[in-house]
Structure formats: C-alpha cells, structure tokens
C-alpha cells in the first residue's frame, strides 16, 4: 500500500493526543498515593513493499505501542522491606513507651523510697505513734502505686493486643484483595490502562501489607504476585487467587501473642505485628519483675515483722497482704501493730528497736529501691536503644521511599515540557494535513 500523507498525519495527531492525555493524567495524579508515572511508547508503522514491489516506500505513520509504567521493582521491594523494619521498630518503641510511662509515671520508685525512709525515721523514736502512722501511710502509698503500675501495664498490654488483632484483620483483608487482584490481572490484556491501574493497586496493597508483616514476593510474567509471609523462608500467604488466613493466639498466662498461618506457626521478623509481639514479650517480663519485687517486699517485711513485738507487747502480725503488684495491699491499718521490739521484751511500749533493725535489714536484703531502679533502667534502656534503631531505620526507609518516588513519581516540570512537546507535535501533524490538502488542490488545478 502506498503511503498516504493524510493518514500519516492523522496517526501523528492521534499519537500526540494520546501523549497529551497521558501527560494530563500524570499531572492530575501528581499527588495520588501509589500512582506510578505513565509514559506512552510509540512505534513506527511501516511495511515492506510486498511481492514484486520491493523498492516501494510504504509508510503508514505511528501507533501506540503501549503505556509504560515506570516502576522499578527493586526500589519497590526496598520500600517494602525497609517499611516493614520501620513498622516493627516503631510499633515496639511506642508499646515500650507506654510501658515505660506505666511504670515511671505511677511513681513506684518514689513511693518505695518514701516507705524505706519512713522506717528509718521510725528508728529515731520507735514509740512515737505519729511516726508509726507515717510508716503505715507510706506503706499504703507504696501498695497503691504498685497496683496502679500493674493496672497501667495491663492497659498498655491490652492496647498492644488490640492493635495486633486489628493488624491481623488488616493482613487478612489485604491478602484477600491481593488474591482478587491476581485473578483480574490474569484476565487483563497486556499494556492496557486497566492493567496498569491493577498493577498500581497491587503495589499499593503490597506496601500496605509490608507495614504489618515482613513479606517476600515473587512476580509472574502477567503481573500476578505470590506472597510468603515471614520473609523468603516463611509461609505462603497468597498464591494465585487463594489467600491463606493469618491467625493470632494470646497466651492465657502472660498475655503474649503468637501467630499462625492455617495451622503452621509463624515467626515474624518485621512489620507492626512483630513489633507488638516484641513489646508484649518485654512487657510480660517487666510485669513479672514488678510482681516478684512486690512479693519479695511483702514476704521480707511480714516475716521480719512476725519475729518481734508491737507497741502493745503482742507478737507482730502481717502488715501486708498479697503476692503480686496487683494484689499487694495493707492487711493492718494500725501503726501500733508495727513490731519494733524484739520478741524477748514483753513489756508494752518498749523503746527497744532491735526488731525494727531486723525489719530494715530484711528489706535491705530485698533492696526494693535498687531493684525498682533496675526495672526502670531495664525498660528505659531498652526503649532508648530501640529509639536509636528506629531513627536509623526511619532514615533508611525515608531514603528508599524518596528514591522510589523520585523514579516513579510525577515531575511536574517534566510534564510541562511533555505538554509543550506533544502540543507542538499535534500542531506539526496538523500542518502536514494542510500540506497534503495543498498538494491535492495543486494537483486538481493542473487539469
């Protein structure tokens, strides 16, 4: 077929229109989340002359080869991987922060120091009833703050478990959606705008999923994705159009959580779910430490107390009740019941403070303020470490994100240039049509 100037110009105009459309689409989506910059790939339409007409010139203009999605799979994978790490670190850090507040803001340390100091003050004059009342009140404050700390820690753990439950629901929702996207990708025709939109959706979902758990992905030629949860050695979550179900179990003893896919146990190394799991484990350990300390104080005080006589000459009775931070309470509210005198002195009102010294020695053996300081140091040290890690991971993740968006995002300046370029191409093709019309008119005038 011989070349036809008018139809070549027509294809040129059409191509320029497509170019303008794509530019307009890019500009419109400059700030859409997960939108990857499109560009049009054009190719020449030309044919060889065919049989017996080898020398013929046969040019037919331009056609749209496809709409190219400028996504870099490596940078996307980096964004997902670093995003998982940040999500884990930030979930753990925020969980630990709540636990730190629970222990620190409840004022357990100050209350313990107050209690210890009130006992030291009582040593100055063991028969002074106001000093004795002060010991009882400080003991009440201490028991109260232990209870508050315990409740606050439980509340922090509840919050973490709530977030983890929501995370599991989200993972399952995203897995379902990805399975559906896979089905539609299998049906979409190549390089259609439907397919590019589906690929955008797929990548957006993958990024979202990586915020909850670390995943590894494998892409097939038609764009379908197979996902393993828990890294490359993990368990299959999505294959083709089927999605497995992520489950979560809470330990009835210490409230820590564990995950399963189907019935296979799952170990997560990244994502907010892993962070919440770590924070809950640390919280459970700290809670045990706090409970042990409370129990030790109760035991040491009550045991030493039972070895002496109180202000009325009776043998000492247990001042505290309970075995843990949550159950610690005052069993006796009368300051006269503090057994400061040794068992050998039976006269009421004795100023002999031998047993008070024994009580203080027993308490010093438990070292309540030192142990509490160690607990506080444990949680704040861990949190400070995690914050440093989080800062580093955040920088890495931000860089990866910026790198991806620099490569796949829309640059308005470039689009402005494209706009001018395609506009000029359009005008040039129009000129070609005019030339073709002029030639035709000239030919007509010959006759």
């Amino acid at each position, binding site marked *: 077929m011989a070349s036809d100037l008018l139809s070549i110009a027509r294809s040129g105009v059409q191509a320029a229109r497509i170019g303008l459309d794509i530019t307009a689409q890019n500009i419109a989506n*400059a*700030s859409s989340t997960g939108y990857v*910059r499109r560009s049009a790939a054009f190719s020449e339409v030309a044919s060889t002359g065919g049989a017996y007409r080898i020398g013929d010139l046969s040019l037919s203009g331009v056609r749209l080869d496809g709409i190219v999605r400028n996504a870099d799979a490596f940078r996307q994978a980096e964004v997902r991987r670093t995003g998982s790490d940040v999500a884990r670190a930030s979930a753990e850090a925020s969980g*630990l*922060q709540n636990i*730190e*507040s629970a222990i*620190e803001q409840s004022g357990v*340390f*100050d209350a313990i*120091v*107050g209690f*210890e*100091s009130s006992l*030291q*003050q009582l*040593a*100055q*004059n063991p*028969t*002074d009833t106001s000093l004795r009342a002060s010991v009882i009140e400080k003991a009440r404050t201490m028991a109260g703050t232990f209870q508050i700390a315990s409740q606050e820690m439980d509340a922090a753990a509840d919050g973490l478990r709530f977030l983890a439950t929501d995370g599991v629901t989200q993972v399952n929702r995203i897995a379902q959606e990805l399975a559906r996207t896979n089905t539609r990708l299998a049906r979409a025709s190549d390089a259609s705008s439907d397919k590019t939109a589906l690929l955008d959706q797929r990548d957006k979902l993958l990024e979202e999923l990586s915020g909850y758990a670390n995943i590894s992905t494998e892409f097939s030629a038609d764009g379908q994705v197979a996902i393993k949860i828990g890294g490359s050695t993990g368990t299959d979550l999505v294959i083709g159009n089927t999605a497995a179900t992520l489950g979560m179990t809470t330990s009835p003893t210490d409230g820590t959580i564990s995950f399963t896919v189907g019935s296979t146990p799952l170990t997560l190394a990244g994502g907010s779910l892993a962070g919440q799991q770590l924070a809950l484990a640390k919280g459970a350990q700290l809670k045990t430490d706090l409970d042990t300390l409370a129990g030790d104080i109760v035991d040491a005080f009550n045991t030493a107390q039972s070895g002496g006589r109180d202000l009325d000459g009776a043998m000492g009775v247990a001042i505290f009740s309970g075995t843990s931070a949550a159950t610690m309470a005052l069993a006796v509210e009368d300051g006269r019941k503090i057994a400061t005198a040794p068992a050998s002195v039976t*006269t009421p*009102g*004795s*100023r*002999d*403070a031998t047993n008070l010294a024994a009580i203080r020695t027993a308490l010093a053996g438990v070292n309540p*303020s030192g142990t509490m*300081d160690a607990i*506080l*140091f444990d*949680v*704040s*040290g861990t*949190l*400070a470490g995690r*914050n440093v890690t989080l800062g580093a991971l955040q920088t890495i993740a*931000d*860089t990866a*994100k*910026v*790198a991806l*968006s*620099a*490569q*796949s*995002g*829309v*640059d*308005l*300046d470039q689009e*402005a*240039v494209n*706009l*001018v370029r395609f506009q000029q191409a359009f005008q040039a093709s129009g000129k070609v049509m005019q030339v073709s019309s002029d030639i035709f008119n000239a030919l007509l005038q010959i006759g």
Partner: protein
Amino acid sequence: MSTIFGTSTSAFFERSVMDLTALRKQAEETQAEMSTGERLQRSSDDPVAASRLRQLARADVFDDIDTAATNRAVGDLTLTDSALSQFANLVIRLQELATQAGSTTVNASQRAGIGEEVAQIHGNLVALANTRDANGNALFGGESAAEAYTLDAAGNATYTGTNAPGSISLGGGQSVPRGVIGPDFLQFQSGGATVDLLALTKTLADDLKSGTGGITPAQTALAALGDGLNSITTAQTVVGSRLNWIDLNTDRRASLSEMRTTEKTEVGGADLTESIARLQNTMLVLQASQASFSRLANLSLFSVLN
C-alpha cells in the same frame, strides 16, 4: 538530608516536609528543656543519667531524715549537758554543806538543819535524774520507757533504766549515743569502792539529821563528793565531744548534699545558655529552610510557559 537528582514533584515535597518536621521537632525538644529546666523529659531520654538522678533523689530523701535525726540528737545531748551542769551545781552546794557540817563550830542541832537541806538536795538530785527528754522519755534512763530512778518507801533511789543509752543514726553509717545513763556519772570510784551519789547524799542527810556520828560522816562524804564532781564533769566532757562529732557529721553531710546538687545539675539540668543558643540556631536554620522551600515550591515551569 538526602539529595536525589531527577526528582519527582511529590518526592520534593515529601523531602521538604521531612526536613522541616525534623527541625521543628528539634526546636520543640529544646523548648521543652528550657521550660522545664530538665534535660530529661523521660527516663528513656538518657537511661543512665535517669538512674543516677533517681539514686540522688533517694539520697536526698534519706538526707532529710538524717538531718531530723541529727537535730534530735543535738537536742537530747544539749538537754543532757544542761542537766549535768545542774548536777554539778548541786554537788558543789553539797560540798559546801558537808564542809560546814564537818566543822567543829556547828553544834548538833545546826548539823541537823544542814541535814534537812541535804535531804532537800537529795530530792532535787532524784528529780534531776528523772528529767525527761524532748520526746518525754527519761533522759538518763537509757532505752527505758518509764522513770530512770524509782524511790522505795524509805526514800532510797534505785536505777530502773537500761544499761546503755540508745543511739541515733546520723547517716553515712555513722551514729551517736543519744545521751548518758544515770549510773554512768552518778556511780563512781572513791576510796577503792563504788559510790552512788544518790545513796551517798541520802546517807549523809540521814546521818546529819539524826545527829549520830557528828563530824565524821560529813568529812567522809566530803572526800567522796569531790570524786562525784569529777565524774559529772567527765560526763560533760563526753557529751561535749559527742556534740562535736555531730557537728563534724553535719559538715560532712552538708558538703555531700552540695556535691549531690552539683551532680544533679550536671547530669539532669538543662544549661540555659546552651539551650537558648541551640534554639536560636535551630530557628535560624528552620527559617532559612522555610524561605528556601517557599521559593523552590514557587518555581514551576507552568508559570513560565504561556
């Protein structure tokens, strides 16, 4: 700040937001430091410093109690000291009376009169021995909850207190006995035997009143009274040196407390000058970043193309 060339518009905005947010956060942290005067807002800001601050705060609480204990010990020892001075005065008066009674110039009835006064002084001595301290406990009775001396029907005083005075902790592992017990200074060695001042006075009073013996008991008593006065002044010296020991400890505690305050400021306090300079610096950078951001953001090819 990371720089990536060939950037996209959204990447430019994202990066600008990141940088500006970081600067603003830094400025807010400095501001919080300045308004609270504390470098640490929570333990995890600096776990080691926070732990040190907790220990310092604990030491402060115990120091307050040690201060109260020291004041109590000073009070008790001062009371003891003034009571001992009164004891000494009474013994000197006894010496005068014994000297008079031992003289041949007084007759039996005058001696009986002196005996009455000695009996009165005996009463005063017993009352003084039963002085109470600031807490209402027997000053010379050791750890006893009741009187230091009790009188039987015949008027003989018996010590009923404990064998040692209680001690008060002054902090830093140091302690001081809170006083002296009656027998420490009321019983003394004289002429190779242990003499009790109260018993001695009682016997002297009885002997003089009854008129038996005449000069002899007064002269015997006179020798013993000299030793008694010695014993009392010795006790006063002991009390004085204990007060000195407390003063030493108070000085030590004051300097320790000063060191703690210094350390607290160093570990946990915000240096206002440094904070202000840092805030100024941060604000300057923030302003420059904002200005450059608004200029760059206005640079669009669209506004040039017409």
